């Protein structure tokens, strides 16, 4: 554990012993929270919610949503080793095997296989039913893995499954952690056909999808420079009937000016989802999907969008801030 837990009883003892701590600090001036928020909203209002430029150095938000995060848990009283569990992907498409992983580490160093008696897992659905049990195998590099065959899961558009992992150490101690994954049966798939054009000063990339069943579909993508830097993102959602259909991603023209990005552009990541119900059914992330034609910067609009609801919210927050400031000054004037 890297931090000391701050227990109430300890703090109470400290305060009793030392008395109230002398503090020479102040919160932000009256109305500052409202004013800061208003300023932030006016900046965000330059773009529609469906599309925005990424800041210099900002990561690809579409990719980030599909990155897997480990769930880690220590033993009783925060003792090492720590058990960390994860799945190969956030979501697996129907028909794919599910690869699951676990590590046992002490301060970042993997526990030797001789220190571990067994690592096992249970797949549990959202009703609490245990669907199957797994035995993890040591791959020789400190990572334990298990593969769940593709049959036996699914049925719904998508479902969330919990993975209860238990690691029995050679000394008899137990470590437990709860991971999970989505299993998705999306009702549409990208065909790999794309086209691009400029409309009203925005770059539109249309992606063709094969729709098996009518529904609502969401598409999100991130544009990269030819040098491989992500600089803008867009999303769209459409209600589509079965058959081959197009979903258009409009990249707001201002982003090309803000980032001084010259084309052609690379559609670096593309994520499709079926969103009729929760949980959504997620298709696999597609990378390096398409490269657009070259466009001149002058073809793209340079005017801010001025999202009306955000501008209005900012205006009202400014009034809140003014009022708070006036009220704060009142005692001084009396």
């Amino acid at each position, binding site marked *: *554990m*890297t*931090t000391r*837990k*701050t*227990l*109430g009883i300890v*703090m109470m003892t400290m*305060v009793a012993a030392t008395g109230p701590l*002398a*503090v*020479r*600090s*102040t*919160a*932000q001036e009256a109305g500052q*929270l*409202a004013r800061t*928020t208003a300023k*932030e*909203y006016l900046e965000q209002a330059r773009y*529609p*919610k*469906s599309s925005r430029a990424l*800041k210099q150095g900002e990561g690809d938000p579409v990719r980030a*949503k599909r990155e897997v*995060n*480990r*769930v880690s*848990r220590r033993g*009783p009283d*925060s003792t090492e080793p720590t058990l960390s569990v994860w*799945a190969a992907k*956030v*979501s697996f498409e129907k028909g794919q095997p599910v690869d699951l992983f676990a590590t046992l580490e002490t301060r970042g160093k993997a526990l030797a296989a001789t220190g571990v008696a067994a690592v096992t897992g249970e797949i*549990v659905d*959202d009703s609490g039913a245990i669907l199957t049990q797994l035995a993890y195998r040591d791959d020789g590099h400190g990572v334990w893995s298990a593969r769940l065959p593709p049959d036996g899961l699914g049925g719904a558009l998508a479902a969330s499954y919990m*993975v*209860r992992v*238990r690691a029995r150490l050679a000394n008899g101690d137990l470590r*437990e*952690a*709860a991971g*999970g*994954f989505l299993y998705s049966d999306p009702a549409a798939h990208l065909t790999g056909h794309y086209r691009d054009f400029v409309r009203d000063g925005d770059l539109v990339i249309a992606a063709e999808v094969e729709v098996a069943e009518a529904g609502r579909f*969401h598409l999100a993508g991130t544009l990269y420079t030819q040098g491989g830097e992500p600089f803008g993102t867009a*999303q*769209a*959602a459409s209600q589509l009937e079965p058959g081959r259909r197009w979903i258009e991603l409009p990249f707001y023209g201002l982003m090309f000016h803000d980032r001084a990005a010259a084309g052609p552009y690379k559609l670096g990541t593309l994520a499709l*989802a079926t*969103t009729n119900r*929760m*949980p*959504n059914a*997620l298709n696999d992330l597609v990378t390096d999907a398409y490269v657009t034609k070259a466009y001149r910067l002058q073809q793209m609009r340079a005017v801010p969008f001025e999202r009306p*609801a*955000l501008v209005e919210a900012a205006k*009202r927050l400014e*009034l809140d801030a003014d*009022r708070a400031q006036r009220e704060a000054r009142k005692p001084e004037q009396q």
Partner: protein
Amino acid sequence: MQFRRFTVPILAALALLAVAGQAAAQPCLIFVHGKQTDTNTFTSYTAARNYWVNGTHDFVKTATKNFATPYYVVGYNGTRPYWESQAAGEVANEIVNATNGGADAGGHRCTKTFAQGGTFWVIAHSMGGTVMDYILGNNDASDLNFNFNGPYDVVAARISLAITTGGAHRGSQGADAVCLQSNPLCSFIAIFIQSCDDATFWLRSSDDVQVRTFANPPARTIYLTAGYEAIFGASACLNGEDDGVVQYASSFACNGSATASYDNTNVCNNANKQEASGFRNLDAAHENHSDERDDSDSDTRRAIPDGNWTCGGVPCAPNTVVQSSMTTARFISTLY
């Protein structure tokens, strides 16, 4: 002309009064409670209101400056997943009702409607934070789950901001522990987490249930404050600082692993949140998960990275004691 001589000054005075009236209004505070183990807060206003009360201590009373500020208390089904109609759907509908001037089930209403120029701040505790992430992250027709079961777009258009206290933005390791069903040492506050019910299942730390997987950056800024008063037993099952139910990685909406260890010195700053925009740090309080919502523990507050406290005109260094005795409810009352 006689008519013009009197009318012009009168109209000017009326206009001035109208502007002054608009400018003088305080935001209406809308309270959204957290996870529950029964449906009481959904079916009983008294239960929803009492969520914020502990004996003579009353979060709503303190945050509203002894009820000088108008308020509205939301009650939803805290046993259902954050995205369901009786959770997010109910909350969205109630917030819209509040902004229309409708009364909560206890007869309390916001003084000015949105149409009259009113402003509205949402105060959410625990799972209430997750619910607000889902609503505000699905307010646009281009979002994954736009208006999934309620008027999310209207909510986002009408509220000014949200403040969460001990918000379960990345779930709770308490939920993980309960759903593992094996460690009796993790004795969580029973009122919040008792079993691996549907709401708890959806508050786990893994990506497949995280609100960030099913929502976009919130359309209105969500300000974050959390407690670091651990609870004996429960906190041994949570990584880093925590309030006995929710660990810092979640209450401060950090990116990366929801189970990463953070404290007041190194908790994620505003550039490292679960979304690229829409989450901002305020501070941390020596309160546990229950204290955060009931105004019962007036205790130390500390600065965190990118928080809102200033020391001598500059941001206070993380972990600086900025108040020796202040509840979260009182802190909120200083922000507007």
